[in-house]
């Protein structure tokens, strides 16, 4: 749910990175944080366990520049990917404007990917959103690993609607900004349509 403030001439949007445990959601945000100039970013917050697994969420506020005199700010969130944190995932989807699904390309994680995308659909529906209508981008992460599924296979299983999709290697930044730009664009286009 975007927040348009005429008084401070700002528009704020919320983007959530979703996906199975250890697929690289936090790594995406860490890369964006590391490569963004200080004036365009706020502090990154990670609510994580002692073993650096996301416990509640990561949060990164970003400024993208101005459109027609309005500063555009994007708040990036990740959800905790581990299955048993479902209650927390639901909370983080509240008021979302756009979703990035980060898939783990490794063959052995395919079932976890499918389960997570179904979980996303269910949790969005609980908040009154439809995965088929919300601004949505899919990222196939970990393309540098040996035992990975082909993009065609991933597409067939995880992206039947053919939304924008990107191959990524999050730790080195491959595909990270492409993914972010694509979802931000979709969110703004949706706002333009008065969504």
């Amino acid at each position: 749910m975007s927040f348009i403030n005429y008084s401070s001439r700002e528009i704020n949007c919320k983007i959530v990175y979703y996906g199975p445990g250890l697929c690289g959601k936090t790594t995406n945000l860490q890369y964006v944080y590391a490569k963004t100039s200080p004036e365009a970013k706020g502090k990154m917050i990670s609510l994580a366990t002692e073993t650096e697994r996301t416990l509640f969420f990561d949060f990164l506020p970003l400024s993208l520049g101005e459109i027609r005199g309005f500063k555009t700010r994007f708040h990036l969130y990740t959800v905790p990917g581990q299955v048993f944190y479902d209650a927390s995932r639901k909370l983080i989807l509240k008021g979302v404007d756009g979703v990035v699904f980060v898939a783990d390309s490794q063959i052995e994680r395919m079932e976890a990917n499918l389960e997570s995308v179904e979980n996303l659909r269910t949790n969005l529906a609980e908040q009154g959103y439809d995965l088929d209508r919300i601004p949505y981008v899919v990222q196939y992460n970990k393309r540098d690993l040996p035992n990975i599924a082909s993009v065609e296979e991933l597409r067939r299983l995880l992206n039947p609607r053919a939304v924008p999709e990107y191959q990524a290697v999050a730790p080195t930044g491959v595909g990270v900004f492409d993914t972010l730009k694509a979802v931000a664009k979709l969110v703004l286009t949706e706002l333009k349509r008065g969504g």
Partner: protein
Amino acid sequence: MNPGLVMYDEEYRQIAGVCDRLTRDANAKVVFLVDKNGQLISASGQAQNLDTTSLASLTAGNVAAMGGLAKLIGEKEFPSQFHEGERESLHMSIVGGRVVLVVIFDAKSSLGLVRLRVKKAGEELARIFDSLAHKQAMPGAQSPFAEITDDDIDNLFSE
């Protein structure tokens, strides 16, 4: 999709006025108002040295988590929470079901005083947000983004 929150100058001034007065009346250090999705709406008092964006996001996360806990035990929500620190304390209350009013205070104030002042300010804020919701629902109210072009959006990403 749910319509987003839109804030207009007039209501923003009213809200800032209520928050400024609450800061004074409650002897608070900082008062801020956050929507339930974590967007900062307004900040009053000594907010200059605070990371208000992070505060807003964590406030919303906290209120959402407490709301989830409330539902698990059969409550609708916990309308207010209080966290007491060694020097500073924090009071959060849900206003009009949609925004969170946060008061940070130290030994110069007290929980009793804060609660008393928050109650009155909360009622005023709820009225302002009602009128804001009404205004947003009126025909003709549209997103300022309705007129942007695809080029405007592209330009944002062309560095």
